[in-house]
């Protein structure tokens, strides 16, 4: 059974009369114990999507979806308090920039103690203080901080960024979530620390069977750690499939461009040669192109691209493009004919 099943989720920004669709009909599903990467450049709405899942967006954002199921429960039918009760029990999120997200005025130990649910503690009221402290220490050990006594007493600014990130993960783990959403857990971190954080997350995934949604702007950084990847561009769904499929058999021109533009994936290129790029820059929210939002930058764009493409499924490899790559000419022809016949039948029906 799918852990999380989202179909056609849209997020709209209501601003004086004119609505902007920041996320346009994105589908996302997660299985138990899966590590899924969510990749998109800035402004692709990946963080918005994550915030919509944990329902922390404020009133100016309108979220609606065709289906929003969490372990078979339809969350859209529940009232907000009920929904939040379920979400806070099962889902935890690590936010971007750990330094900025921790409270600078209280010690790390207090913040951790706050996150521990009192229902986890058994015993009389005079024992609870002691138990809470033990639980805090245990959590710190779990995320690989050995020197707990120093860490508990210090304020966030006294710790390094990697340690702060570990503390954030510890806070997220306090309620033993089933799904962990990690929003750019290693942004602006150097390689050694990046590796440590990713290794910690993957060991949690393996030991606790915890599903992880790993959000990143860079495809090359996360391919080693994920089972499946979803790619987004400018608020639209682009492609989803296993890491292997996305990386070696990309069907969408955008994914292909992402893979081609990474110098790490193209080691065979001679040094100092030109890299493949897409022309232009990412559209801003106020001036989104109609139809497929990649249209103006896409090397394969044709007239049909002014209409938003529907998602087609090739053996679990979902792609949202009118002209996907790797289709043999025959298949393309048959697709065109199909479309034509559909149009004809529509006309005759009218």
């Amino acid at each position: 059974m799918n852990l999380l099943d989202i179909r056609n989720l849209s997020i709209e920004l209501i601003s004086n009369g004119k609505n902007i669709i920041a996320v346009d009909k994105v589908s996302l599903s997660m299985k138990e114990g899966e590590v899924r990467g969510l990749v998109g450049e800035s402004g692709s709405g990946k963080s918005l999507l994550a915030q919509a899942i944990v329902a922390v967006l404020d009133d100016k954002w309108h979220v609606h979806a065709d289906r929003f199921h969490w372990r078979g429960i339809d969350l859209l039918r529940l009232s907000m308090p009920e929904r939040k009760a379920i979400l806070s029990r099962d889902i935890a999120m690590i936010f971007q920039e750990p330094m900025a997200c921790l409270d600078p005025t209280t010690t790390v130990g207090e913040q951790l103690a706050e996150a521990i649910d009192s229902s986890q503690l058994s015993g009389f009221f005079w024992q609870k203080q002691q138990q809470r402290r033990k639980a805090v220490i245990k959590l710190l050990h779990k995320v690989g901080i050995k020197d707990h006594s120093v860490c508990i007493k210090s304020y966030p600014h006294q710790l390094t960024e990697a340690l702060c990130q570990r503390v954030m993960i510890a806070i997220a783990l306090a309620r033993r979530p089933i799904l962990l959403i990690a929003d750019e857990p290693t942004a602006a971190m150097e390689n050694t620390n990046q590796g440590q954080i990713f290794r910690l997350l993957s060991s949690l995934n393996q030991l606790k069977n915890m599903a992880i949604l790993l959000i990143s702007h860079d495809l090359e950084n996360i391919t080693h750690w994920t089972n499946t990847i979803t790619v987004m561009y400018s608020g639209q769904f682009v492609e989803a499939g296993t890491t292997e499929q996305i990386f070696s058999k990309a069907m969408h021109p955008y994914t292909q461009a992402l893979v081609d533009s990474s110098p790490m994936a193209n080691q065979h290129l001679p040094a100092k040669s030109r890299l493949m790029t897409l022309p232009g820059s990412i559209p801003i929210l106020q001036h989104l192109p109609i139809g497929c939002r990649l249209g103006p930058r896409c090397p394969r764009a044709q007239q049909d691209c002014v209409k938003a493409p529907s998602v087609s499924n090739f053996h679990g490899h979902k792609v949202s493009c009118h002209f996907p790559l790797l289709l043999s000419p025959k298949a393309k022809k048959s697709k065109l004919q199909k479309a034509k016949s559909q149009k004809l039948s529509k006309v005759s029906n009218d």
Partner: protein
Amino acid sequence: MTELLKVQALTKSYQQKGYWLNRKRITVLDSVSFTIEAHKTLAIIGETGSGKSTLARLLVGAEPASSGNIYLNGQELKSGSYKHRCQHIRMIFQDSGTTLNPSLTIQELLDEPLKLNTPFNEKKRTELIRMTLQKVGLLGDHMNFYPHMFSGGQKQRISLARAIILQPQVVILDEALASLDPSLRSQMINLLLDLQQQMGLAYILISHNLGIIRHFSDEIMVLSQGKVIECGNTQEIMTKPQHKTTQKLMLNQSFQLRVKNRYKS
């Protein structure tokens, strides 16, 4: 080929505040020496606190060095001589969004270094600004815009325009590519490579991303705790790192490569 920039035994140390007896000196850079030629790129890698950014600041003259010499074309740069230095050594910072003054138009921004360093009149300066903007892939008319009207990638191009407008010989990129999105980053790399060929620039690239370093640089210098632990040709160091710290740096990157190797085979 003669060397363009030569750095000899550059050292930087700070005096820690404290009482008279337990005052400590912290050495951030410990006698670093290297040379760069025109058309070449030197990459500097190292962990945080290894002194990479301090080295960049010393080279542009934002801070005086404790000891050591910097020679540009055989001529020594002293810590007071900013006039000469700022024309030939320029720097691009990590976050282009915060390093451009939001209250000035692009023309005013780019005019500043020209006013201070060149004898050109206004007409000549405007023409030069227009040409430089076109060189970095923007339009000449963009000079009446304010920085907030540009996207992140375009802002980084404006920082680049500000760096190259004085026809420098050395450009220092302090994590200048880290904050860009992948598709814009490869555009920027292409642009930097083109400019290097056209103008004969030497780059000093400070970066974490070994993929970019492998693609972009000719030589690598590895810093650890202010000391140079390894220095040499990019290909050689990437394939056969000698020092333990370098090996550790390379190992962490190799995690991200395994899928790609499978793809190749």
